[in-house]
C-alpha cells in the first residue's frame, strides 16, 4: 500500500493505483475525457491535470501512479486555466458547434466538461477543416468532425471486444480514426457490437436508430438482460414514451461485464421495429383468419386439443421465459400427458451435458473463467459468429499471450486469428481430443494411467489419420495445452447434441488431466431450462394431426414450417405476424421480449430476471399467462414451483 494526500485528504491505495483512481475512490472528483473506468489509462486529453508538490509542471492524474508521500492538489486557478485551455484546444480542432449535435444537452462529455469549467465561450475559433462522415455501417455512423481523438473507441475495440478494427492514422491535428487499413466501416472487419458507440464521449460515434430521439435526461434507463442467446448479457435499456431508444451493455453485470454484441444492441430492436404485431386472438372461419375474443379463441383451441389429444404435438421456443416453459410443460406433459412435447432446439445444446451430469453432477464452470485463461480450446462451435460475446472474451485476451486452439470442421471463422486452427474431418472431435490427451502423455507434459494412453504414439497416429490433421499439429497443440496454467475448454453443438455424451466424456477426461474449466455454449436464452424440464426430446411434427406452437416473439424457421405443413390444426402463440400465423387455425397474441418479464437460465446456470420494459399494446398477454388461460380452459391449474422443477434433474451447471 502507498499513502498520498489529495486536496489535504490522506488516502491509502494499493501500489500501482493511479492518482485519478485514488481520488475517485476517495470521492474526489477530477474531470476527465479520454479516461474510461473499463479501459487502460491513455493520458490523451490532459483534462485531468493536477498539481503535484515538487513537480515542474501539472501532471495528468490518469497516468500518474500514486507513490508514497505524494501531495496532490486538484483545484486551483492554474489547474482551472489549464483545463479551460485544454478544452479550448479540443473545441478548436474540429466542428464542435453544439446545436448541430444529437448528444448536446447533457449526453456530451465534452460539453459537460466545458460547463463544469464554467466556460461561456471558447478562446480559439475552429480551424474549419472538414472530414468525411462514414455512414457505411447499417447501425452507426462515424462523424469524424466531432471526434476528439480520445481513442476510447480504439481501446474499446481492442481491450473489451478483441476485434482490433479501429485505429488512428496520421499524427497531431491530422490524426484520423480508421477502420482496418483505412476502409469504410461497413466494409471493414467491424462486427457492429457498438461498444465504441457506447463509450464515445461526444457525438462522433452515432447510433443511427437512437440519434435525435431523446437525451438521457428525457428518458428512463432500466437494467435487464438480453435474451438473444444463452450468454444472458446484462443490458441497460433506455426508453421514452413507451419506446426503446437505445440498448447499452451493463458494466455492472457479472456475466458480460458491459460487453454486448450486435444482436443485443441492435438486432433485437430491428425485429421489434419491423415486426407486425398480432393484435387480437384470431380463429379460422370459412378458410379466413378472423378476429375473435380470448374466450372464443380459448374455447376453439381447447376443443381442438381435446379431440386430437392422441395425435397432438406441442413445441415451444427455448427463448421463452422459465415461467412460460414451465406452464407449457405442466399443461402438455404433466396435464394432458402428450408424448410429442419439446422445445425448439430439442436438446441440441444440452443433451450431452445432461447425460454426463447424471453420473458427474455439476462439472462445468463459469464464463468468467475465460478472463484468466492462458489457453482456450474451442471445439465444434463458431464463437466468432455465434455467442459473439464469448468470442470477444476469448479474443481480447490473445494479446496478453493467451493461446487459442480452435478445433473446427471449417475453421474459416477463426482464420484471421493468430493462433492454432485445427481443421478436422467432420465428426472426428472425439478422436482429436484423444489425440491431444495421448500427445501430452507422449511429450511427457502430463501422465495418464488409462488403457487408452498405454500406447500414446499409436493413439496420436490414429487421431491424425481419423481427423485428417498432421500429427505434428496435434502434438504442438498438446504441448501448449499441457503446459497451460489455467486452461478453458469451450465446446458447442457438435459435442453437446449427442445423447450418449461420448465426445464430451473424452473432453471431461482431458479436462481432468489438465485441470481445465469446461464451458459449453447453450444456444437459446432458455435452453438449459428447456432441458431441465425435459423439453429436449426429438419430436416428429410430420405425423401429428394437431400442433400447438408457442413462438413468442420469434419467427418460425423453414424447418418448422415444413414440419407442420401437413398438420391439420395449428394453434399458434405469436407476438408477430409470420408465415406460421398465416396458416394457423387459432392464433393467440402474446407479448414480445420487452413487454413481458420472466426468468432465464444462462449457460452458466445463473438464474436471471428479465424486466418488463414496455407496456403491452392491444390484447396481447404474457406468454405464460396465455398458457395458464388455456390450461384453465382445459380444466388444469398450474403452480409456480418452477425453481424446484429446474433443480430436480441433475445439471452440468449449478442452477441458482
Amino acid at each position: 500500500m502507498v499513502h498520498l494526500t489529495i486536496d489535504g485528504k490522506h488516502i491509502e491505495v494499493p501500489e500501482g493505483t493511479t492518482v485519478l483512481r485514488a481520488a475517485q475512490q476517495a470521492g474526489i472528483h477530477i474531470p476527465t475525457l479520454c479516461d474510461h473506468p473499463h479501459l487502460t489509462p491513455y493520458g490523451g486529453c490532459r483534462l485531468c491535470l493536477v498539481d503535484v508538490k515538487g513537480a515542474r509542471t501539472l501532471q495528468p492524474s490518469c497516468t500518474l501512479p500514486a507513490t508514497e508521500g505524494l501531495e496532490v492538489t486538484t483545484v486551483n486557478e492554474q489547474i482551472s486555466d489549464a483545463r479551460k485551455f485544454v478544452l479550448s484546444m479540443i473545441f478548436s480542432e474540429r466542428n464542435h458547434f453544439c446545436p448541430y449535435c444529437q448528444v448536446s444537452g447533457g449526453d456530451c462529455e465534452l460539453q459537460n466538461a466545458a460547463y463544469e469549467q464554467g466556460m461561456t465561450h471558447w478562446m480559439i475559433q475552429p480551424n474549419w477543416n472538414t472530414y468525411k462522415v462514414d455512414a457505411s455501417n447499417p447501425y452507426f455512423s462515424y462523424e469524424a468532425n466531432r471526434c476528439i481523438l480520445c481513442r476510447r473507441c480504439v481501446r474499446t475495440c481492442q481491450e473489451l471486444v478483441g476485434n482490433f478494427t479501429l485505429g488512428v492514422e496520421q499524427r497531431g491535428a491530422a490524426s484520423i480514426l480508421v477502420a482496418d487499413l483505412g476502409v469504410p466501416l461497413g466494409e471493414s472487419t467491424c462486427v457492429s457490437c457498438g461498444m465504441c458507440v457506447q463509450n464515445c464521449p461526444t457525438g462522433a460515434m452515432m447510433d443511427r436508430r437512437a440519434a435525435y430521439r431523446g437525451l438521457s435526461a428525457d428518458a428512463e434507463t432500466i437494467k435487464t438482460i438480453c435474451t438473444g442467446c444463452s450468454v444472458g448479457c446484462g443490458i441497460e435499456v433506455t426508453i421514452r414514451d413507451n419506446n426503446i431508444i437505445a440498448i447499452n451493455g451493463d458494466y455492472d453485470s457479472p456475466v458480460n461485464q458491459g460487453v454486448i454484441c450486435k444482436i443485443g444492441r441492435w438486432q433485437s430492436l430491428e425485429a421489434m421495429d419491423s415486426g407486425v404485431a398480432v393484435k387480437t386472438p384470431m380463429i379460422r372461419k370459412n378458410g379466413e383468419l378472423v378476429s375473435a375474443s380470448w374466450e372464443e379463441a380459448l374455447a376453439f383451441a381447447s376443443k381442438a386439443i381435446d379431440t386430437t389429444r392422441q395425435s397432438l404435438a406441442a413445441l415451444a421456443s427455448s427463448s421463452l421465459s422459465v415461467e412460460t416453459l414451465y406452464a407449457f410443460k405442466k399443461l402438455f406433459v404433466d396435464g394432458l400427458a402428450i408424448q410429442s412435447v419439446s422445445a425448439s432446439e430439442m436438446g441440441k445444446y444440452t443433451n450431452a451435458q445432461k447425460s454426463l451430469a447424471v453420473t458427474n453432477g455439476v462439472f462445468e464452470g463459469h464464463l468468467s473463467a475465460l478472463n484468466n485463461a492462458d489457453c482456450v480450446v474451442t471445439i465444434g462451435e463458431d464463437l466468432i459468429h455465434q455467442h459473439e460475446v464469448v468470442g470477444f472474451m476469448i479474443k481480447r485476451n490473445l494479446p496478453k499471450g493467451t493461446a487459442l486452439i480452435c478445433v473446427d470442421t471449417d475453421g474459416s471463422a477463426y482464420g484471421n486469428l493468430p493462433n492454432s486452427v485445427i481443421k478436422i474431418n467432420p465428426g472426428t472431435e472425439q478422436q482429436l481430443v484423444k489425440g491431444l490427451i495421448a500427445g501430452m502423455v507422449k511429450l511427457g507434459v502430463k501422465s495418464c494411467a488409462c488403457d487408452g494412453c498405454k500406447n500414446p504414439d499409436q493413439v496420436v497416429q490414429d487421431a491424425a489419420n481419423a481427423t485428417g490433421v498432421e500429427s505434428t499439429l496435434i502434438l504442438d497443440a498438446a504441448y501448449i495445452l499441457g503446459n497451460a496454467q489455467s486452461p478453458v475448454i469451450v465446446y458447442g453443438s457438435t459435442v453437446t447434441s449427442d445423447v450418449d455424451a461420448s465426445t464430451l466424456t473424452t473432453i471431461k477426461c482431458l479436462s481432468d488431466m489438465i485441470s481445465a474449466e469446461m464451458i459449453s455454449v447453450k444456444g437459446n436464452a432458455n435452453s438449459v431450462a428447456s432441458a431441465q424440464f425435459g423439453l429436449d426430446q426429438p419430436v416428429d411434427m410430420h405425423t401429428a394431426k394437431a400442433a400447438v406452437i408457442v413462438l413468442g416473439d420469434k419467427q418460425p424457421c423453414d424447418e418448422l414450417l415444413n414440419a407442420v405443413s401437413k398438420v391439420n390444426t395449428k394453434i399458434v402463440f405469436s407476438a408477430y405476424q409470420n408465415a406460421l400465423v398465416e396458416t394457423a387455425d387459432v392464433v393467440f397474441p402474446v407479448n414480445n421480449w420487452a413487454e413481458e418479464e420472466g426468468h432465464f437460465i444462462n449457460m452458466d446456470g445463473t438464474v436471471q430476471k428479465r424486466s418488463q420494459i414496455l407496456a403491452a399494446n392491444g390484447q396481447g398477454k404474457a406468454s405464460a399467462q396465455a398458457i395458464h388461460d388455456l390450461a384453465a380452459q382445459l380444466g388444469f391449474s398450474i403452480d409456480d414451483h418452477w425453481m424446484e422443477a429446474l433443480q430436480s434433474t441433475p445439471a452440468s451447471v449449478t442452477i441458482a
Partner: protein
Amino acid sequence: MTKPKVASDWLAGCSGCHMSLLDMDERLLDIIDLVDLRATPITDLKHPDKDGVDVGILEGGINNSANLAVAKMMRERCKILVALGDCAVFGGVPAMRNFFDLDETVRYVYTQTMSMDKEAIVPKDPELAVPQRVQALSEVIKVDVFVPGCPPSPDAIYHVLSELAQGRLPNLTGNLLDWH
C-alpha cells in the same frame, strides 16, 4: 440614480435570441423598471445613442460588411458589450457555411436552391453588403459578457440583464449555462 441605458441589435442570427428575451414575459416589466431601454430592432429607435449607452447587446455573428459596421458602432457606443446567443458567441448555425468555399456558397444559394429558377443570378449591386466568412463577435470586437445558448433561456437573459442593471457582471452557472 439614473437608470442604465441599454441598446441592442441583431446581426447574422435568426432573431430567436430577441424572441427569447421577450419570452421572459412579465419579468420584462421588472427589467424596464431597472433600465432605460433605448434602440433595439423591435423598438422605434434603430441606432444606439450617439452619446453612448451603458450596455450594448448583440445577437448573431458577423457574416458581411454591414454586420461588421453595426458591431463596431455598438462597441464604440457602449460600455459593456454582451454577446447574446450561440451565433454571437461562437458563430453558431450561420458559421456552418465556413466549412464551404464562400464564393461557391453564395453562388449556390442564389442560383441552385429549390426555389430558384433558371434566370437566377448572384446580385452584384455595389450598395449591397459584402459577404465574408462568418465570425464570432469576439474575433472582431471586445466582448465583455458571453451568453451562450441557441437561444439562451429567458431565465439566463433575465439573470444577465438584472445583474447588469444592478451594476454587477453576471456569472452564468448551472442551468443558466447552456450552449445549445
